[in-house]
């Protein structure tokens, strides 16, 4: 038999018919023995003059029987069971079974709560591992994006240098083109001089022939001058050819410089756009890293649920001890634990969730999320 506290609302009624039967026999036997012992005195008191004494003695006897019965009733629940009948007995039997089941359930509750706690801890671990994996992946992307960003920046600078070189090349080509034009003008002048010299030599030869013997030496000079003018002509022709070739080359270089300039403008544009895109990727990575803070928030929420489960384990352990033992109920009321939960919250969203369930009010956050003092 389990000892229950006096204030337990459910009365304990053992289901032991043989014990009840035996105790009833003992009780009846005790009354019979008492009647047998008092039999001579009963005969004596049945006389009319002793009726009052008889009534008193019967009353005393009944009182003794009832007192013994009550005493046994208090000590032995089997007798109580014998004296109680009908729905009350059945109800108490059901309550006793419920109580036994409740005690069994309370024994299982720590295990049940431990399973929940374990599952929540595992969920916490999973989100933490997941967040760390994501950040590891981001950490691999980060140096690559930074290297790519640096390369693009470098390429942009190189494209700028190349464009400057192409510009200088175009300027040099223009200078060469100007020089070749000047040279062409100079060769034209020299050719004119040679032509005049040739005429002069011809005239000199005519005058030398007219002078006869005296002009023979002069004729030699005129002939040499004529040859000189012819050589000048030939040289000028070669110079013209060289200038024409150079002009052609300069013209080609100039076209190439223009092409290079266009190409570099295009490369610079690509580099600038790519740099901007990489910068966006860079910012996206920073944003993604910021969003990882969700894990810390959910971790703290889950940890608080785990702590609440631990509180429940303590609570129901105290309830179970009180149900099983003779001591007064001494556990902390569940309402106080609910209030304690509210006090332990750190996040506004936790207070809002709590208030939504309990119907309590919660004040809106008046301070900004970012506050500089």
């Amino acid at each position, binding site marked *: 038999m389990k000892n229950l506290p006096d204030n337990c609302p459910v009365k304990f009624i053992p289901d032991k018919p043989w014990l009840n039967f035996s105790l009833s026999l003992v009780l009846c036997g005790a009354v019979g023995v008492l009647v047998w012992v008092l039999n001579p005195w009963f005969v004596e008191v049945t006389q009319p003059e002793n009726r009052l004494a008889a009534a008193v003695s019967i009353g005393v006897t009944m009182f003794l029987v009832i007192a013994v019965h009550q005493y046994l009733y208090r000590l032995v629940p089997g007798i109580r069971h014998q004296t109680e009948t009908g729905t009350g007995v059945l109800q108490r039997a059901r309550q006793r079974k419920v109580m036994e089941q409740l005690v069994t359930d309370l024994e299982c509750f720590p295990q049940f709560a431990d399973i929940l706690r374990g599952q929540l801890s595992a969920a916490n671990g999973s989100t933490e591992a997941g967040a760390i994996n994501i950040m590891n992946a981001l950490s691999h992307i980060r140096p690559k994006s930074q290297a790519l960003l640096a390369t693009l920046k470098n390429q942009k600078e190189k494209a700028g240098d190349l464009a400057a070189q192409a510009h200088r090349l175009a300027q040099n080509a223009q200078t060469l083109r100007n020089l070749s034009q000047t040279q062409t003008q100079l060769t034209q002048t020299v050719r004119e001089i040679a032509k005049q010299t040739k005429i002069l030599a011809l005239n000199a030869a005519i005058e030398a022939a007219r002078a006869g013997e005296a002009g023979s030496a002069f004729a030699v000079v005129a002939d040499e001058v004529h040859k000189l003018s012819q050589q000048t002509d030939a040289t000028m022709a070669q110079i013209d050819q060289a200038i024409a070739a150079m002009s052609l080359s300069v013209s080609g270089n100039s076209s190439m410089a223009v092409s290079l300039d266009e190409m570099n403008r295009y490369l610079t544009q690509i580099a600038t756009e790519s740099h901007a895109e990489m910068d966006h990727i860079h910012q996206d990575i920073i944003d993604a890293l*910021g969003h990882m803070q969700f894990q810390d*928030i959910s971790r703290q929420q889950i940890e608080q649920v785990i702590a609440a489960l631990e509180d429940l384990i303590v609570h129901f352990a105290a309830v179970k001890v009180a149900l099983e033992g003779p001591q007064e109920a001494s556990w902390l009321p569940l309402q106080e634990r609910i209030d304690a939960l509210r006090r332990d919250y750190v*996040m506004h969203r936790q207070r809002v969730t709590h208030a939504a369930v309990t119907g309590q009010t919660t004040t809106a956050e008046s301070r900004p999320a970012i506050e500089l003092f």
Partner: protein
Amino acid sequence: MAKTIFIIDDSAVMLMSLKQTLEMAAFQVETAKDGLEAFQRLKSGLKPDLIITDINMPNMNGLEFIKNARIVLRFTPILALTTESQAAKRDEAKRLGATGWLVKPVAGPDLLRVIKQVMPGI
């Protein structure tokens, strides 16, 4: 030379997230997992240009850390970055010498903007 930021948080995820964000912004980052470890690092000679600390931590919480850190570093800005939203704790942090209070989650660009506001010379 890169400025040094000291982050204190008991969450591995938060430490990793903040470290990467700040390194991408060209800061040098030091970390500690609670207030006690952080205070020991300061006593060992670490002189960060900025401290970012969580509030609810084991061993030594953020408020105690701010109080102790102010003995060693009087002028270094200290930001509290926490899920804690109680006004009383916020006021307590202010009284102990914190420079600002940021409630998680704080987006990366917002954090960098606040750092630029409180850190001299950047």
